[in-house]
């Protein structure tokens, strides 16, 4: 939902001038530190799922104050986009609390969730990594066959017609069109022609995104599209171009906020606060309909470690308790397909997210960086865990206990590479089904997770 879109663009062009270095060092970093002290925010990492309402509310207040104090920096114009509290409150009030997405038998409700909510989470599936052109079609089809999928972002392309795609070069437009066409075609073949798309991730630049807007073969009005939040609390003209286009297309514009643990925000407390400010950047600058949240660890690029799960629970509860905004929580796991660690990581992330009041986006394996290494089966696992813990009305206290048991399975292994196997070794590519040995591991891990306290629905 776009409130005062053009007034914001004017601020992006004519707001107060500031050097980028000054914004980071003298505005952003010290303000985060000051707000942690002011609100006395302290992470208790022995409980990887936060159980304190008071702490969640402090995180919200600090994050909102960070956004109001620092604003958002436009790297292209070197201008700060500022808002006053009345405007932020207006945007928060005006934002819808749910959307009806997809059509016909794929119509779904994608809505705000509360802490320990008993409403089903909305599940978006995507590995968020690139695949070979030769398996791309079948990889997309495999995801679309997943029964718990409410929306898809899908695998990405790195090459087009045998050539590496280069950002801002015509090959990027070609590859992005190929992606959009393939996704539309595979959705029909899977019997889900009107399923909700978040597309297309292959298109990095604004021009490539604009090129794939097409009601027949590409991204349609009503699909969702993403606008990055740049490290940290920054934007640029390309992102603003995307936001304008998405809002005018009738897309659900979403911000991609990924506050970095260990980066400019410092530790867990600062990262949670920064994530809130990023969500407000999406709402107020991009007119975002929802936030696709992926705070991650500076060294590992993942978000399934203890401190990351705490951050996810804290910012999620902050938003769930203090707004009616729509959110989802994107899993970045360390391990790869055909490893038990990947299932355990996905489960821990799902529990921390949905019990705290988030929807789920799952799952990017291998620290989101190993080509071809992702399958729908790990997404299915996390989705089954998410629905099950919601159905059994799991509390945050219980969630914290289960997540601690899951962490015991993999916490020590996080620093070590454990990338498993690529899609074509874990799946029968032609039939788009998991290989028996991967399914065996799936069921074995389900039994293990059930023993930890998850009552699987089936």
């Amino acid at each position, binding site marked *: 939902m776009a409130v005062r879109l053009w007034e914001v663009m004017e601020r992006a062009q004519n707001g107060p001038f500031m050097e980028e270095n000054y914004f980071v060092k003298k505005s952003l*970093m010290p303000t985060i530190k000051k707000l942690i002290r002011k609100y006395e925010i302290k992470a208790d990492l022995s409980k990887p799922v936060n159980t304190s309402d008071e702490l969640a509310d402090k995180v919200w207040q600090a994050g909102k104050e960070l956004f109001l104090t620092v604003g958002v920096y436009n790297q292209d114009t070197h201008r700060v986009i500022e808002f006053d509290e009345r405007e932020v409150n207006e945007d928060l009030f005006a934002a819808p609390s749910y959307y009806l997405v997809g059509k016909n038998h794929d119509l779904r409700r994608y809505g705000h969730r509360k802490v320990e909510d008993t409403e089903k989470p909305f599940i978006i599936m995507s590995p968020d990594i690139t695949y070979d052109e030769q398996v791309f079609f079948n990889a997309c089809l495999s995801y679309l066959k997943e029964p718990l999928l409410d929306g898809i972002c899908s695998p*990405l392309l*790195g090459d087009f017609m045998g050539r590496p795609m*280069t*950002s801002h070069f015509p090959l990027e437009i070609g590859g992005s069109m190929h992606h959009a066409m393939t996704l539309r075609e595979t959705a029909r073949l899977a019997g889900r022609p009107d399923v909700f798309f978040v597309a297309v991730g*292959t298109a*990095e630049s604004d021009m490539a995104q604009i090129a794939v807007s097409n009601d027949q073969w590409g991204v349609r009005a009503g699909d969702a599209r993403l606008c990055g939040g740049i490290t940290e609390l920054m934007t640029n003209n390309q992102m603003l171009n995307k936001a304008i286009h998405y809002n005018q297309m009738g897309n659900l514009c979403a911000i991609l906020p990924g506050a970095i643990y260990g980066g*400019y925000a*410092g530790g867990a407390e600062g990262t949670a606060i920064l994530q809130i400010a990023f969500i407000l950047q999406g709402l107020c600058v991009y007119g975002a309909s929802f936030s696709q949240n992926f705070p991650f660890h500076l060294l590992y690029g993942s978000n399934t470690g203890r401190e990351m799960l705490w951050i996810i629970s804290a910012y999620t509860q902050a938003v769930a308790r203090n707004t009616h905004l729509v959110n989802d929580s994107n899993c970045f796991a360390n391990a790869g397909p055909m490893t038990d660690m990947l299932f355990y990581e996905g489960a821990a992330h799902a529990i921390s997210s949905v019990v705290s009041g988030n929807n789920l986006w799952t799952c990017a394996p291998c620290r989101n960086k190993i*080509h071809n290494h992702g399958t729908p089966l790990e997404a299915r696992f996390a989705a089954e865990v998410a629905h099950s813990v919601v159905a059994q009305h799991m509390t945050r206290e219980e969630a914290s206990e289960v997540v601690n048991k899951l962490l015991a399975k993999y916490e020590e292994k996080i620093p070590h590479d454990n990338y498993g196997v690529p899609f074509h070794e874990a799946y029968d590519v032609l039939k788009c089904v998991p290989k028996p040995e991967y399914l065996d591991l799936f069921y074995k891990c389900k039994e293990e997770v059930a023993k930890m306290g998850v009552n699987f629905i089936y």
Partner: protein
Amino acid sequence: MEESIKKLTEAIMDGDDEVSAEAAQEIVDAKADLKPVIEKLTDTMRELGRQFEAMEIFLPEMILSADAMVAAMDIFGPVLAESGDIQKKGTVVLGTAPGDMHEIGKNIVVTVLTADGFDVVDLGKNVPAIDYVNKAVENEADVIGVSALMTTTMPGATEVINLLRDKDLYGKFKVIVGGAPTNPNWAKDIGADGWAESAAEAVTLVNNLVQK
């Protein structure tokens, strides 16, 4: 004197550039031998680097400490140059690949290389391939570094190396690459001289390359 050195190392650990400069000036005014002081500072920065890699401290602390180190070196520099004791480690030209807006990784490498004593020319983000080549020539650089965080920006590193070849400059500068989706095999395939997974590895790599 010991007191001023202690004050200086503590100021660097605390990331206080004003106190760091003050302590450095005290040391210069006392006409102390700067060599052992510089060695002490190098040890301090190494310890900070270790703490950062272990996430015992975070990027803000690392940046402020590097700034404090630079503040001290700004005062020591002219004295070292005059005495002939200054040893330039090398010049590194760094940026993110064409089309790539993600620069936190590159910024960390800039910070740790600067703290390690290199002259770093930070080209910023979304740097056209030709700019790497021109700036390396202009600054008589030893190393060119290209960071890419997206698969679609990785070809930008290849473009830099291809330009060096086309301008008969390949081999004149060492080229290093890095970034989340990159790997050592790809680096080798495109003709880079080195690849690093982390900032700490980048420092070791650059030190090794400039010694060759």
